[in-house]
């Protein structure tokens, strides 16, 4: 959620049980301004919190000119001193998925080690122990990247793709109406589209290329991996991801206010198919 609207948007996602203490809020309001200036970001978002066993990571996200591509993630323990996270590469994602499955420790220099036996040759006698080592910092980078890829949400129309291909905030977005906000078709994944090209011409005909350049939540597999509710005296539309438990999105119908926040243990809910 945007750092400018943090003070009231935290109340709107508090239905999931997590919030920030007043001390942390005030610290964020100070440090994010400095962060924006130092890194020359156009916009700074408070992204969320990943709960570790010893310490919690606070995550902020800076956005540049292109809202989708120019993203940088930073983490902090005290909401004051921010450290840049490395961008997640393919090989990093691969290593992290092998090595780390347990809870985050809360120590960025902690090294996860994973041993794997590979057999070579026809006789299975030659065993080679392959060890994969990953630091928690890169795991954090990968987790934040994955959550953004898989479950970051925006309402339809909140962002437009300009003729130059830049993704920008739509300044004339007035919010979804109440009935629109009740349908999951009107919420989009805020990441590079994967399913869009597979759509038939019939389905594409109704779409507006400036607005509908993103994947729709409805197409997510398995069906029902989102929980859509109206909260805060039924005035705020709240979406919760069941795949990444802890991701909460809010949108106030008829206003341009929207945002999402992740507060959770940073572990994907792989049991989802059993649980629906």
């Amino acid at each position, binding site marked *: 959620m945007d750092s400018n609207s943090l003070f009231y948007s935290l109340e709107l996602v508090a239905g999931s049980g997590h*919030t920030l*203490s007043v*001390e942390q809020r005030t610290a964020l309001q100070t440090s994010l301004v400095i962060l924006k200036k130092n890194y020359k970001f156009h916009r700074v978002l408070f992204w969320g919190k990943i709960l570790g066993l010893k310490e919690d990571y606070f995550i902020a996200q800076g956005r540049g000119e292109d809202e989708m591509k120019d993203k940088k993630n930073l983490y902090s323990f*005290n909401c004051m001193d921010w450290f840049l996270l490395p961008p997640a590469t393919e090989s990093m994602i691969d290593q992290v998925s092998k090595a780390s499955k347990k809870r985050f420790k809360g120590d960025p220099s902690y090294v996860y080690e994973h041993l794997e036996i590979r057999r070579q040759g026809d006789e299975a006698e030659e065993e080679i122990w392959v060890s994969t080592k990953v630091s928690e910092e890169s795991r954090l980078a990968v987790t934040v990247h994955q959550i953004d890829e898989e479950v970051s949400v925006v309402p339809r129309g909140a962002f437009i793709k300009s003729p130059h291909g830049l993704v920008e905030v739509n300044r004339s977005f007035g919010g979804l109406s109440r009935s629109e906000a009740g349908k999951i078709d009107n919420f989009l994944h805020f990441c590079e589209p994967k399913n869009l090209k597979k759509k038939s011409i019939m389905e594409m005909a109704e779409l507006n290329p400036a607005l509908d350049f993103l994947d729709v939540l409805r197409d997510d597999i398995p069906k029902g991996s989102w929980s859509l509710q109206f909260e805060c005296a*039924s005035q705020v539309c709240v979406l919760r991801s069941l795949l990444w438990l802890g991701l909460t999105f809010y949108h106030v119908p008829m206003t341009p206010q929207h945002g999402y926040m992740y507060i959770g243990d940073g572990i994907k809910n792989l049991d989802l198919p059993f649980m629906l």
Partner: protein
Amino acid sequence: MDITDGNQNTDLRLRSAESFKAFLLKSSSKSGLNLYDHITRLLIKVMNEQPQNVVDVIEDLSRDVKQEYYEDKQSTLRELPQTTAEELLAEQQRALFSHPEDSEHEDELVEIPLPNVSEIGFYLEQAGVGLGREEMQRIFLALKKLVESQALPRCRLWGKILGTESNYIVAEADYREGEEEDEQITEEVAEERDAEMEKSQENEMDPLPQSTYKPPPVVQKEAIGTGANKFVYYVCKEPGLPWVKLPPVSPVQITVARQIRKFFTGKLDTPINSYPPFPGNEANYLRAQIARISAGTQVSPQGFFQAGEEEGDEEDEVPRENCEMNPDFESIPVAEMAESLSTWVHHVQHILQQGRCTWINMAVKPGEDSNEDVEDEEREEEPDEPEPEVGPPLLTPLSQDAEILNTPPWSSKLSSTLTSQHAVAVLRSNLWPGAYTYAFGKKFENIYVGWGLKYTGDGHSPAVPLAPQKEYPSGPEITEALDPTLEEEQALQEALEEQQAAQEEMEDTDEGEEEDDD
């Protein structure tokens, strides 16, 4: 080349002009006008009237033109009143803010055992937990309604369980005196009814084939007011909506709930589709999870509670069931509480593998715990000897909780590092994500806000179905035998032929003798 390019350009230009005209012709959904016609009329008006400094008054002219459309066009249709969910909820929540009518009862109101939810909310917010201040206030008012309407002797906010369609706000209360008997009687009646049903089925003419499967003996439910049924729980979807009382939990429900992983939907009467089959609907599942979460995560500073005094010395073997507030409790320094887990104790009984807090001897059928091997993780190590199951006694320090899946079961910290002299000690459960406890001076509170699911580490592996039952008893008449070989057949045939020949000879001699007789 140039000509074709020029053609294409004009084509493009024409097309874009057309599409722009179409855009202008689009009529507004409110007024039914469109910009194209409006500008046409406006220009006609300007041409007809030719006013001075026309550019300065063009807005007024435009408004005049618009007004001309609206003459004598008032709608004769009546508006259809539509009530939205938002309005309905507001109507229902309005009751929360009504003042009590008779002021005579003011003295009594003071004595209502209502927890101070705003204070709890204040401390929880420091701990980074909360439901939002306004929501907390609404829950506070809803709890007040509950306590007033049900005349509960004690009540506290237990927490909130998130569901896929709506959420549950859970309140914990003591049983009223006299309520226990009522419930037991109704249960007995229900059992009798079941028995009658069975009888009536037996009387039918054509009995169906009976299954030989015998279910394992059912572990008895704990009496109301003890063990896992010590408290009664009320849930509601939104503050202001009616509170629903949850049924008491049975041991089977707890043991099955340990083996399944399901999201709550938010509707109490939803059936639970799972394997192993869960005995009951979502209300029972919710109650079972509440019992498990309470047993695992309800903790208090050491010394706040002390063992009940009614326990005599002769009953040493019986684990303590009750604890009471210690009037001489002296607060533990907050820094120490955040530092060491041994300053915290469990004050709710541990649930045994059997699904009960106190062990009951199922000696009639000794093989009862065959399916309980599947269970992995309760917060303590399981005793090696099969019986009697003994859980850790009440008021065991948290430092004795076992590590599960290499995860320490608790994380503790101070709520603030900058102003640590006024911080609160916060305890977070890692086994039940969403369970928090804070302690500050003589105050502490437990709350759970989450999906009602336990941390399972690498992933849930559902129980494998049992082997199918055999259809028929295996015997020689239905077991498959090897086909005889050619030699065996020939040998058999020869033997048969010899036998036949011998018989024929016998018959011949018999006949000869008979003839001789005649």
